[in-house]
């Protein structure tokens, strides 16, 4: 899955339809145009002596990009100023005879007699130019996430990223939340992330709320680009709460900002109370921990205090609520938090 753009051939769908690459978005950039060197297109008298590259394996790879009309002004990257950067001191007298004039008429038979047979195939032997990037690997996703964030802020939309392992009860919590908040005049919409099926979006639609299903195909998390596409399918009313249910996974979603205002992680008493220590990245980036399936607590070995203590070791600021989407116990406190957080992002009327 592509973090800069979940588009294209990797199987991401929104409500069953393939996400198309945005125009100008060409990130498969010209495969193979490095150094194509098409032998057949070369006039027969043009004898590059290619063997000398392959024979001694020190990777200096003629960066010529001649485009086969054969007008190359002959600069040929070539870069082996006799320095060779061999970086070793085993004094192997390789004497580059290297006819520097290079025979402009394309005889190009620079005779390079250096036949050092030692294999210095290490990184040092690579002749190249260093280009500094100093760029965050997630910069592409981050940029799109900030764009989403601005879009949400401009519409007073409170976006929540809900994450958990599979089966912790995210969808059940959403269903009950939507039903219970129905009387409060707060528009709620849902983005459902799953690898496959639209089952969860259908469950949400059955509550009356708008829902769009994002299928990530093989992808193990949502990213900001998918969310932008998903949101485009939702007619979000100003002042909405947008609940984004991430793919069930306690690892990967933690790294990908979607542009949300709040992160909520759900765990349940049927899981181990050591989950926060086992998956610290997820708990470290969350604002709220919901411990679900409280109704099952009498039947399982789950130490609530221990779980909370573990979670706060990882994230001292983490807020925690205990609830059961099944019985409704503890849910009002969650609704209070949700509506209070939403009020914070609303611009003054």
């Amino acid at each position, binding site marked *: 899955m592509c973090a800069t753009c979940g588009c294209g051939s990797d199987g991401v769908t929104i409500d069953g339809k393939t996400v198309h690459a945005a125009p100008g978005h060409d990130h498969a*950039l010209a495969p193979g145009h490095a150094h194509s060197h098409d032998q057949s297109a070369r006039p027969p008298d043009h004898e590059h002596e290619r063997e000398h590259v392959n024979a001694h394996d020190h990777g200096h790879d003629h960066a010529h*990009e001649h485009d086969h009309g054969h007008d190359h002004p002959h600069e040929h990257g070539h870069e082996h100023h006799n320095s060779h950067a061999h970086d070793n001191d085993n004094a192997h007298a390789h004497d580059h005879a290297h006819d520097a004039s290079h025979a402009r008429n394309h005889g190009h038979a620079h005779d390079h007699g250096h036949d050092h047979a030692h294999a210095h195939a290490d990184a040092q032997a690579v002749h190249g130019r260093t280009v500094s*990037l100093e760029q965050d690997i997630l910069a592409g996703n981050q940029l799109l996430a900030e764009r989403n964030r601005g879009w949400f802020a401009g519409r007073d939309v409170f976006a929540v990223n809900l994450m958990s392992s599979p089966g912790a009860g995210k969808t059940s919590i959403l269903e009950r939340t939507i039903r219970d908040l129905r009387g409060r005049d707060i528009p709620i919409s849902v983005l459902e992330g799953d690898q496959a099926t639209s089952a969860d979006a259908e469950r949400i639609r059955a509550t009356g709320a708008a829902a769009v299903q994002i299928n990530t195909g093989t992808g193990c998390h949502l990213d900001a680009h998918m969310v932008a596409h998903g949101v485009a399918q939702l007619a979000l009313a100003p002042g909405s709460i947008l609940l984004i249910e991430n793919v069930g996974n306690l690892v990967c979603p933690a790294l990908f900002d979607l542009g949300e205002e709040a992160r909520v992680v759900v765990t349940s008493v049927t899981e181990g109370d050591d989950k926060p220590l086992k998956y610290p990245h997820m708990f*470290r980036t969350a604002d709220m921990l919901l411990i679900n399936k409280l109704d099952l607590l009498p039947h399982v070995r789950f130490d609530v205090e221990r779980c909370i203590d573990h979670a706060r070791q990882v994230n001292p600021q983490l807020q925690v609520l205990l609830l059961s989407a099944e019985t409704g116990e503890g849910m009002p406190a969650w609704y209070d938090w949700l509506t209070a957080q939403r009020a914070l992002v609303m611009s003054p009327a």
Partner: protein
Amino acid sequence: MHELSLATAVVDACVERAAGARVLRVRLEIGQLAAVLPDSLRFCFGICAQGTVVEGAELEILETQGRAICEACGGTIALSSPFGRCACGGVLRVVAGDELRVKDMEIA
């Protein structure tokens, strides 16, 4: 498996900056606390690079150590997981080790 997303992002960044030149080597800085498996990233990088100017490039991963400062006593502590407590009981703030950066690359 988010390493696949990260590898794609690395390859995209390199392809963009290489502007058609062949990429020989890419250097990443990955913090020990960044929730990334270098081996998995390496594997995915090889796959994502196929058919681009990055294909065949060597991937060098510089791993940086986790480090935190105690908010209470100001001491610096080495960390191998992204949480912990200071000996004084204070809360730790991670100051290094969660890097996920493309440092530079070598092009032909």
